[in-house]
């Protein structure tokens, strides 16, 4: 097996794919759907926002390991953060999965497990699907966000 594959499917990713955290819908709050028309991945992200902060977050749906693990990791990382901070994290993660192979990722904690995606440009959309949906939900958009 190639080292690229090992870098992509790290234990953290495989674990979050098998047992996604916060894999539930929220009774209260807002939601948005993320849809990748190319592969059919479809995730719904739920956020409950109070005073500009994300009090609770969950997701549901079907996706590949990268989309699912990224969604799961995202929920763990944005819970309790302000919407502005979650937005900034979106930008940071997007940079991480698209920038040069040797760019540092030390500041990202468990999210750095997604860094392997940068070797697989066609999988960037998978990694960012839930993040786009989260942003749309936080912005109170009811539209389906697509990766296209």
């Amino acid at each position, binding site marked *: *097996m190639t080292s*690229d*594959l090992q870098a992509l499917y790290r234990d953290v990713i495989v674990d979050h794919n098998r047992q996604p955290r916060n894999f539930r819908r929220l009774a209260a709050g807002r939601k948005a759907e993320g849809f990748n028309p*190319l*592969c*059919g991945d479809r995730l719904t992200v739920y956020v409950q926002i109070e005073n500009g902060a994300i009090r609770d977050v969950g997701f549901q749906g079907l*996706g590949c*390991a990268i989309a699912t693990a990224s969604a799961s990791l995202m929920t763990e990382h944005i819970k309790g953060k302000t919407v502005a901070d979650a937005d900034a994290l979106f930008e940071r993660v997007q940079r991480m999965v698209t920038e040069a192979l040797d760019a540092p990722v030390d500041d990202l904690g468990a999210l750095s497990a997604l860094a392997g995606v940068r070797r697989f440009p066609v*999988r960037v959309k998978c990694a960012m699907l839930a993040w786009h949906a989260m942003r749309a939900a936080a912005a109170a958009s009811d539209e389906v966000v697509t990766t296209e």
Partner: protein
Amino acid sequence: MMRNVAMIDAPPVAAGSAAPLDLTAIRRDFPMLRQQVHGTRLVYLDNASTTQKPQTVIDRVARFYLEENANVHRGVHWLSERATEAYEGARTTVARFLNARTPQEIVFVRGTTEAVNLVVATYGRSHVGRDDEVVISAMEHHSNIVPWQILCEQAGARLKVIPTTDAGELDLDAYASLLGDRTRIVSVVHVSNVLGTVNPVGEVVRLAHRRGIPVFVDGAQAAAHMPIDVQAIGCDFYACSGHKMFGPTGIGVLYGTSDRLESMPPYQSGGDMIRSVTFERTSYASAPHRFEAGTPHIAGAVGLAAAIDYLDAIGLERIAAHEHDLLGAATDAVARIPGVRLFGTAADKAGVLSFVLEGVHPHDIGTILDREGVAIRAGHHCCQPLMDRLGVPATARASLALYNTRADIDRLSAALQTARGLFA
């Protein structure tokens, strides 16, 4: 450079003979198959998406631009005559390949998608009206759904869908009951790009023709994999794509019976499709030129003819037999992997293997196999309604062509074990 061509190397065989293919010679004909990907020999199993090109096709297209390039049907000069001869010669080759009655029944288009759109825009627009019905099947590619859907919306007509059985075959009883006084056309796929099902298109046509209803057959996945005889099928229209039959991209074929084509209004309009033009009135050329406005993809047509010559020299019967054997081996090998679920178990099936692997999303399978040098497709294969019917968002799909070998199947199988291992 290697210029060995199977049609020269292969021992002479009687037409229709099932003598096995000389795979070593055939693989030498396809330069792409010598590629290394991710440090290993490329195993190309995405032939339902597009096929690789033999050297003869690549050389033929190059020779057109090197020695014959000019516009067709216009010039009086020597070069234009040569280009026209090559282009119209390609039409004759296609006609013979599909067993059309005359070359005039062959319209060059960009591909199967354009062929559907052409028939929708001409035959469809002039025959489908309010409360009429168009019949398609549940296993159609989006290209044989969406154009009809748009036509029905615009005309106030209804789209009727032939259901499929659990094995992935057309439910012919249900089909017969869908045909009625309002049915204006039936459009079905010959070979499913997801399930591999070879539909009984002759029977589909027979049932429709009893009521005088014309039938369009989407042959995109059939044309390079089995002998096609449009007269035996009896269909009114048949379409295929050059790039799925070892020819260039951007060229395809619409076959239509002379009666149908001559009665249809033009498609796109402009140069080359007219008889005479004044500002008061334009009269149109007869088929097929009526449907070929503008300068056509001349090099594409010429390249497609070279691809057909290549296929003919090997023999579609032998190709079909080879792919059938390989499909059997692939099905056994993949089915043996724990957690695999196969889709499409039709009795008559072409070389397409769709499956899911428990706990591993098809996209992850696609990425892992790619790094192992094995190219397959993962996704909905432009068949979202069929995916809904199967109850999965996506499948992984390995699709075969004449140059695939048992060794390719072994590599597929090993790579699937790797995928399983990663997620175990």
